[in-house]
């Protein structure tokens, strides 16, 4: 199905957010996730289903002022 990850449209097979971040090659504790504007804590990712058209943000630490 088609989802939008960090602004880019892509085809995903994963059924849950946890599976999606795995599929995209993310691992470890250095990124945080949100789906359709709502924060999803790491431990909750396996319970969050991915649906057609979902907008997913995967953010990591960055320099800031």
């Amino acid at each position: 199905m088609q989802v939008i990850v960090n602004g880019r449209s892509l085809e995903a097979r994963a059924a849950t957010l946890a599976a999606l971040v795995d599929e995209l090659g993310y691992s470890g504790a250095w990124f945080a996730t949100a789906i359709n504007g709502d924060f999803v804590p790491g431990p909750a990712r396996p319970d969050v289903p991915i649906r057609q058209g979902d907008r997913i943000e995967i953010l990591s630490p960055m320099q800031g002022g």
Partner: protein
Amino acid sequence: MAFTIYDDVFASRLILGTAQYPSPAVLADAVKRSGTALVTVSLRRESGGGDAFWQLIRDLGVMVLPNTAGCHSVREAVTTAEMARELFQTDRIKLEVIGHHDTLQPDVFALVEAAGELTARGFKVYPYTTDDLVVGERLVEAGCKVLMPWCAPIGSARGPRDLHALRALRAAFPEIPLIVDAGLGRPSHAAAVMELGFDGVLLNTAVARAGDPAAMAAAFASAVTAGRTAHHAVPLEPRDMAVPSTPVIGRAVFA
């Protein structure tokens, strides 16, 4: 020189941003020379390097203040704050809700709303605000225990545009830590606001974009200390007429 915000004790009154340095090594040098105990960090879409940056910051042994830079709505700011809390393992959040693209002026209405929401969620909110007294009151009512007014637009290096407004803010909030965030360009600007009794300053561009960031960080650290010491020493009020400093009694008369 230590001071407390919420229940965190900081050994330095200078808070330093981590963006725009020529290299990670220069950033690390500037953090060390500044003596800061707290640095601001951000969250962005993962494009590689986030892990290395976070490791660099952890190795510096300073506390972090994540920001919500770039957020233009309450919802964006709250979601970003939640993501930052998980990632950086801290309840501190520098709350920015930008209201104007050119001036990066805060949207103070959304700021107050977001501050209340984040306080209810257990965050220690550091609001980037203007020098408006009423907005300050609303932020304190919303639960903020620190206020961070700009003194000029972010990155402008203008220095304090209105020292009288900052002085009024200091007088209005004697018990609330006040930090000038944004607009400082030179160490003399930092000294000027510290002389007014501000509790600290938050800097980024003025150090990061200086010819020698580490040396400029050290210069700002000296200025913050000088300004704080001067505030405690009670500076003279300016006078319009000359007042001789050398005693006139006992003066020789030659004619």
